[in-house]
């Protein structure tokens, strides 16, 4: 689309996503989701519960305790938020928790330490990060250090595959999952290119909006999951606005995973003490975990 010519760096062609060379890279998150979906002799197959908490809230050690507690209470995959000064995809609740984490001095290296401290809790740990933090650290260096810490990959809310050349290469080199987002506004072409670039799962935004609790999950979520699968995604998890066990059950009936953030963060922000926060968090997680276990899935629903 460019009429201009740049000398020794020819204008990049309109970015088109190179299909992931993921065939040779195993997906830890994907394998975990597949195992949950397959079930076993003594347990029915089900969708995963993906739980978000930010590092550094209320403190760095406190957030590690909270992550381990939520895994104990039934979270299957951890989405560990790396605090950033300008979180444009987050609503007020998570914004304020993250602001508090930054005000408390939380650093990028604390996230890597928190990954290391939670990686053995029993759930793959994905770091959710806005892109500048990784860019500043160095994309390959961050991937290397995340892998060394035991992390499973990244969820990147402000990085679309079109801009992700370095990350696609680094995640292949270091065996990491890369979770990109799709939205109700995504065209069929973009669903396909995003599905091709993702590894682990595709994050389907249930609604047009930012994170936060909502009275109901977007009515288009089920259709978006179906379209994303049709576009080639192996696994699709749904986030934005899921906060209750009932909503979790509803989403678990059609998605591979249910992503919950604000409701978990609220358990911590509303608590009088860190200990009370952990107790409240485990209560919320228990309700959500019951939801994903109670969901009615169509027979042979492991499509």
């Amino acid at each position: 689309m460019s009429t201009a010519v740049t000398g020794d760096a020819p204008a990049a062609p309109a970015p088109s996503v190179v299909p992931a060379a993921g065939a040779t890279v195993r997906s830890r998150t994907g394998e975990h989701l597949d195992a949950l979906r397959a079930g076993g002799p003594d347990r029915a197959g089900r969708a995963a519960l993906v739980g978000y908490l930010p590092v550094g809230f209320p403190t760095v050690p406190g957030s590690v305790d909270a992550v381990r507690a939520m895994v104990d209470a039934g979270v299957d995959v951890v989405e560990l938020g790396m605090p950033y000064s300008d979180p444009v995809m987050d609503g007020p609740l998570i914004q304020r928790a993250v602001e508090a984490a930054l005000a408390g001095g939380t650093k990028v290296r604390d996230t890597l330490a928190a990954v290391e401290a939670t990686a053995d809790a029993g759930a793959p740990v994905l770091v959710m990060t806005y892109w500048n933090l990784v860019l500043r650290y160095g994309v390959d260096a961050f991937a290397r250090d995340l892998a060394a810490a035991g992390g499973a990959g990244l969820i990147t809310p402000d990085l679309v595959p079109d801009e992700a050349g370095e990350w696609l290469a680094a995640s292949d080199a270091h065996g990491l999952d890369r979770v990109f987002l799709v939205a109700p506004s995504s065209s069929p072409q973009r669903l396909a290119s995003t599905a091709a670039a993702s590894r682990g799962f595709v994050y389907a935004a249930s609604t047009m909006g930012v994170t936060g609790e909502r009275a109901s999950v977007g009515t288009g979520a089920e259709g978006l999951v179906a379209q994303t699968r049709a576009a080639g995604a192996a696994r699709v998890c749904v986030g934005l606005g899921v906060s209750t066990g009932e909503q979790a059950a509803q989403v678990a009936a059609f998605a591979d995973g249910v992503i919950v953030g604000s409701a978990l963060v609220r358990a911590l922000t509303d608590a009088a003490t860190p200990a009370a926060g952990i107790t409240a968090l485990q209560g919320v997680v228990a309700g959500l975990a019951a939801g994903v276990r109670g969901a009615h899935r169509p027979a042979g629903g492991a499509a």
Partner: protein
Amino acid sequence: MTPHGTATPVRDGRPTPEGSPAGAGADVPTTPPSAASTPVRATGPLATQTGPYFGDFGGRYVPEALIAALDELDAAYHEARDDPSFQAELARLHATYTGRPNPLTEVPRFAAHVSPGVRVFLKREDLNHTGSHKINNVLGQALLVKRMGKTRVIAETGAGQHGVATATAAALLDLECVVYMGEEDTQRQALNVARMQLLGATVVPVTTGSRTLKDAINEALRDWVASVDRTHYLLGTVTGPHPFPEMVRDFHSVIGEEARAQVLDITGGLPDAVLACVGGGSNAMGIFNAFLDEPGVRLFGFEAGGHGISSGLHAARFSGGSPGVLQGTRSYVLQDEDGQTRASHSVSAGLDYPSVGPEHAWLHEIGRVDYRPVTDAEAMQAFRLLCRTEGIIPAIESAHALAGALAVGPELLAAGRPDGGEPVLVINLSGRGDKDVATAAAWFDLIDDEERLHAGEGEQL
């Protein structure tokens, strides 16, 4: 795959060396391919660069939810750009509503302070309806909104200039208008809040983060993600995701086109230097664009140096920032070692932003534009000087360009002209200072604190 061009190695987020030579010629021995600072050389016309990328900079670092709207905007903009009826309507509004062309004013009494023996001209964007260059872009985008069939516009504003311009265009074209403004800025610029409300806009004070322009943009982006099917984000400067940097530059390029014709008409030649202040950088891109491909015209961009670069309290991205991504685009960013955005500081709200348009980042890296910081104190001295020598009260933003002229005037005089004539400087006077009277009065101790509190209600009118 790298979107930044095949020859550009990965940058590690550290600042590139300052002052690297401008687009070193192809016959110069090149640095090894691994050198991270190899500038991208431009061999085609600089003025017609299109997005998404300007060298290493630009792109679309936004949530996927916005990509469809950006694609739609990109298509609608390029279709409109090539549509004579769209251009005719915009030209009609420029002529009958904004008051274009505005004059190019020679300012000899001010020039005597710049350097005896230079001629100084001001491009009078301050005389536009609503008081600054902002209206050029706002009218262009608002017409585009009508074309796209959307009914609601949102905007961010710092000092209030862009918010007022957007509210104006929304009233003119019957669009619902919501303006996000940092809570701190709503207090500093209470009069502009009232202006926007008079024009029918809703002003939303933003209480998160640093409560200034950066946070207003975050909030506008959050609104847009949730409302994009009927809402256009009327971004006010040459930053953000593609196509904003290219489109906003194009809507402001009328500034440079007029100035070029006017200076040719008056002096018979091109100027030796063109100077502008650079916040996000829209007025600067607007006037630079017509001169980018004239190697004999030196271009200077003046950033807010605040209390000085060494103080850390400034908004000089090219002196104290480094490449990074903020709010949709890859450019130069004020950031800490972790990549967290650092707070900017300037006496001028319109320059108080931690990033800058990606095309400026590219023009900096190839050395086409010389970006320098101007401190608060230097800007305020130049502000007063223009008031007293020429009877023009400039916006404090624009006063940074005036101060820049005072600094580079002697250099330009020493460099001389090939024909031995007097060096000619064109300064973009991007806005008028009505909004800044309270700030200036306080700066120069013309009013006491009690009066200053009330100045926003009376003095500024």
